[in-house]
């Protein structure tokens, strides 16, 4: 034990070590604070939804109440959905800065609404976020390099190596001590602030444990690489240069090459084609007999087929029916598009098994539910909600029930994921 204490005292006498550890600590804390601020901003934006929504829907209700027309209510009412950040989202913002986390939908064609984005500044999104995942994946290896590149070679260059090897408790035990001490220090500087932040954010214990273990494993990978290169008995300078080059290749170059390769290997039928086809299907309904539209709709939704036949006047049930027909006509394309996105995501994850940088980023964004899978899960919840909206309005339209002010309060409300 006391030997480790001596090593610690020795280590902390080096200016480079002190500066590196302090800098890493400052960066970790800054990234956590920045991530927590971003998540707080997003939570505040979600918390502001009900007030704005109430104001908006009140005006629609005032207007619709004059006619009691359920169709107008369906047409003019936008219903909010939101994707509250998971507790760990502050540590890995993932796609939350470029994909919408608040989206309003109405009971019309969903495929024309669900791909809409929110306002964001693309120049700010371009370099990526400064979050804990970034500090861990991109920056922490550089600190490993700074602390480990001269572990053995530094002693050799100082002419102490043979003496150290000959000491009792020297040699292998000594290197083990020094390696684990440095690793533990780096790990502590990353993990302690993280655990504090995670506790504040209410992250569950198993998730905290996984992140802390992943942090250790990722550091261990870089330490192992540094030790391996140290075995080549090169000079400290050569070690540092080689390790920095390895960092460049593993963290920047291979992922960017992988991105190019994946997007070329997994072509995704462009989402724009869905939008074009859906619009064509929806608008075509104005140019064909309305009975055709209703027949097709009733075939897929027999529960409404006992509704009264259409008169010569415009009826919103026809309007909403052809919107739903339009959505259903592109269902295959939608499934193919989604499968393409999932295949790309899976390919990126597969790369994560061989590339620790990608693996850790993928794991953190998965735990934080801020990755593509999280985005698609949110889309699924929006789809479910939209189906409930349709059922709600259809009951009034297909049964010709009046839609009064009080009925606005009966509309389905989007439900949060439990635990957020």
């Amino acid at each position, binding site marked *: 034990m006391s030997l480790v204490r001596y090593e610690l005292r020795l280590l902390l006498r080096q200016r480079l070590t002190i500066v590196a550890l302090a800098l890493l600590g400052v960066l970790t804390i800054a990234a956590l604070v*920045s991530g927590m*601020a971003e998540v707080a*901003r997003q939570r505040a*934006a979600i918390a502001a939804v009900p007030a*704005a*929504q109430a104001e*908006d829907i009140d*005006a629609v209700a005032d207007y619709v109440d004059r006619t009691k027309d359920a169709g107008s209510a369906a047409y003019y009412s936008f219903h909010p959905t939101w994707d509250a950040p998971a507790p760990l989202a502050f540590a890995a913002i993932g796609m939350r800065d*470029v994909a919408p986390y*608040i989206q*309003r939908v109405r009971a019309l064609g969903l495929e*024309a609404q669900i*791909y*809409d*984005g*929110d*306002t964001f*500044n693309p*120049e*700010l*999104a*371009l*370099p*990526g*976020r*400064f979050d804990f995942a970034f500090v861990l994946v*991109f*920056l922490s290896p550089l600190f490993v390099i700074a602390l480990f590149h001269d572990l053995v070679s530094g002693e050799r260059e100082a002419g102490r190596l043979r003496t150290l090897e000959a000491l009792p408790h020297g040699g292998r035990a000594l290197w083990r001590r020094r390696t684990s001490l440095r690793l533990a220090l780096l790990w502590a500087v990353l993990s302690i602030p993280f655990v504090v932040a995670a506790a504040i954010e209410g992250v569950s214990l198993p998730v905290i444990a996984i992140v802390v273990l992943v942090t250790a494993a990722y550091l261990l990978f870089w330490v192992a690489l540094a030790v391996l290169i140290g075995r080549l008995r090169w000079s*400290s*300078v*050569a070690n*540092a240069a080689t390790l920095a080059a390895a960092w*460049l290749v593993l*963290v*920047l170059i291979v*992922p*960017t090459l992988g*991105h*190019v390769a*994946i*997007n*070329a290997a997994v072509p*995704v039928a*462009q989402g*724009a084609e869905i*939008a*074009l086809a859906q*619009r064509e299907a929806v608008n075509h309904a*104005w140019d064909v007999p309305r009975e055709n539209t209703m027949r097709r709709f009733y075939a897929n939704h027999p529960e409404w087929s006992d509704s009264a036949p259409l008169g010569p006047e*415009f009826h919103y049930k026809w309007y909403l029916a052809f919107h739903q027909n339009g959505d259903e006509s592109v269902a295959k394309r939608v499934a193919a598009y989604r499968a393409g996105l999932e295949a*790309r*995501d899976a*390919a*990126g994850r597969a790369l994560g098994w061989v590339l620790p*940088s*990608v693996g850790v*980023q993928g794991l953190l*964004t998965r735990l934080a539910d801020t990755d*593509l899978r999280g*985005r698609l899960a949110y889309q699924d919840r929006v789809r479910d909600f939209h189906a409930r909206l349709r059922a709600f309005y259809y009951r009034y339209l297909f049964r010709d029930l009046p839609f009064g002010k009080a009925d606005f309060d009966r509309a389905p409300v989007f439900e949060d994921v439990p635990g957020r």
Partner: protein
Amino acid sequence: MSVTRLIARDELRLMVRNRVAVIAFALLVLLTLVAVLSSWSHQRGNAELRARHQHEAEHAFDAQPDRHPHRVVHYGHFIFRPLGPLAAFDPGVDAFTGSSMFLEGHRQNTANFGDVRQSSLLVRFGQLTPAFVLQVVAPLLLIFLGYGALARETERGTIRMLMLQGATRGQVVRGKLMALGAVALLTGLPAMIGFVALAGQPGALALPMATIAIGYAAYLALWVVLIVLVSAAVRRSRDALLALVALWTVAVVLLPRVAPDVASAAVPLQNRLQTDVAIARDLRTMGDSHNPDDPHFAAFKRSVLDRYGVTRVEDLPVNYKGLLGLEGERLTTTLFDRYATASYDAQRRQNALVEGIGLLSPTIALRSLSMAAAGTDFAGHRRFLEQAEAYRYALVQRLNRMQAEDVSYADDTAVDAGADRRKRVSATAWQQMPDFIYTAPSGATLAAGAAPGLAIVIGWLALAAVLLALATRRLGARR
């Protein structure tokens, strides 16, 4: 041969003997080639896809059957953002903005289907483009090749031997600069050749292309000077390497990520829901076409009736519903423009803040220079959005006018069995609608947008040169 050139030649010979250095250099050239080719094929594929989609959308629009003009207002139009020729070198925000936009009446939609939401998580690690290679990778290679240039001589004491043999400090430093500068030139050359090949004929884009070439040359020159400066200022090679890698990390990796977070915390953006609700609120106070007692629309109706000297809308020679559409669209569009301008201005302030932080990191300055000159920065995207909005408004108002003039009020309000037929306008009308044509900015506009970034990079270069001159004076002094 002059002393300076002798020293440069000696330094280069040493680099060539260093097998790792040669391999690293070869890898960089290879990476540049891959970047040029993949960027080129990606951009070409994207440009073709967008042109094809645009063509399909135009064809679909023209092929519409006889329709009521208001149906066409809702049928709307799809437009696709074309890519400038320089986007292959630096695609900038293209992957983040979405390339297609749906234009319709009463609504302002977002640009959708950006690559960033359609790709694996790798997209956030950066994109392999010639710009990325020169901004991020090339400086690190120069660091590896040059960190020891003077520190090595100091460490081993050979610097004093050089001086004993009659070389001045200035000659030594200039020789090292020349050697590393030659490497930098070779490093940048493949990307620049690719750049010229990608851009095709320079023509009108000569000015932004020259700006990009000068900007990257200044950036690499800056790194050469910085590397020699640090190498001159420290006593040991290892310290030089660690200091330079730290400098690179802060300037190239850290600050570009920190700056946006600072900017987005300092200047908040209003999200879409809040904007939509605010627009609806403002619209209700300006004039609510749904409200029969609305004062604005009551006054509008009176003014229309007075203008035509009639007492009932039925007696108007034009279709009152079309006039209402014109007025309603005018009102909503005023609000769209007001809110969009506010949002664009907030984003511009955010970007200005990032550019301010660019004073600390020449990489940020170079990046904004490069995107601005390539027309792929936020300003370029905004140009597209504003032209799209102008086109949307003109299209919708043209259709509203058509409803006012070509569909009679009696037909428009009739509900009998044949009314639907009578309300429709002949299909030939759709072909006469002008297509969306994006007006690309002039070369001078692009180059002007890049000027601030260029000034910062050149300012850095000048500062580093002065510091190097100061450090040169103390070179080899016993410490």
